[in-house]
């Protein structure tokens, strides 16, 4: 699985080497690849009868994880907010 990370690091190196050239098409390429991958992911989910049957319970687990994760991060941000506000300083 580290091949995936290696691909990104290779991309960063190449992008940095070519930093004098603005590679505008790369955002479009990224978007098209995301479309293709989500299409494939949808295909895989749809064709998998076990997943389709469990979709409701998977959705419920997803809802619980999303709510708990968001709430946790909101409380952490609140803590930092209180610290920053007590000691007034500019942004």
């Amino acid at each position, binding site marked *: *699985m*580290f091949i*995936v*990370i290696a*691909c*990104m*690091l290779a*991309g*960063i190196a*190449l*992008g*940095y080497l*070519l*930093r004098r*050239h*603005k*590679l505008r098409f*790369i*955002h479009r390429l*990224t*978007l098209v*690849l*995301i479309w*293709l*991958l*989500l*299409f*494939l*992911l*949808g*295909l*895989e*989910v*749809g*064709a*998998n009868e076990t*997943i389709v049957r469990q979709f409701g319970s*998977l*959705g419920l*687990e*997803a*809802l*619980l*994880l*999303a*709510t*708990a*994760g*968001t709430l*946790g*991060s*909101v*409380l*952490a*941000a*609140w803590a*930092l*907010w209180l610290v920053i506000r007590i000691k007034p*300083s500019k*942004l």
Partner: protein
Amino acid sequence: MKGSIVILSFFATGLLLGLFHWIPTELLNYNFSFYVLCALMFSVGISIGNDPSSFRQFRHLNPRLLFLPILTMLGTWIGVLAVSFMLSGRSAADCLAVGSGFGYYSLSGILITQYKGIELGTIALLSNIIREVITLLLAPWMVQYFGKLAPISAGGATTMDTTFPVIVRYSGKDYAIVSIYHGFVMDFSVPFLVTFFCSL
């Protein structure tokens, strides 16, 4: 918002075609999506490396706000860990991997499907879509009760694109750079953290 709908409609189209077996799913047997994923990560890398100027503008930030992404991560992990005890059949590492998508549903759904299989990948996709939607809908309420940094943390990796307009609207223009900085750091961290928790 419009971009998200387009992305999701690709997922929905695939879902319908798979559901009704309209196209041969043998397409999935050749590791094709793995190679596309590598290409995607390569192109994400290029766009990061190609734009060093985005690092420079972060120098004007209040140093204490530099910690915001770390707090977002810690808060999220504590939250999902608490839930992981309620979910039998999901390990703590599985839940941490899903949480570490931080709203970046396309990438985290795809990565987790590759590493851990389609079931956890589906949870990751749905969970991170829900996180983005929660932020979009509840941002004003978060600002009111938990301060102006709250919707930025809630938005996770999306605070420089999809949830950015909402954050600027409710936290104020002064928080635009914090929001972009936060989104940038979180975006960059997602592939590393997801890979890390999937390898545990």
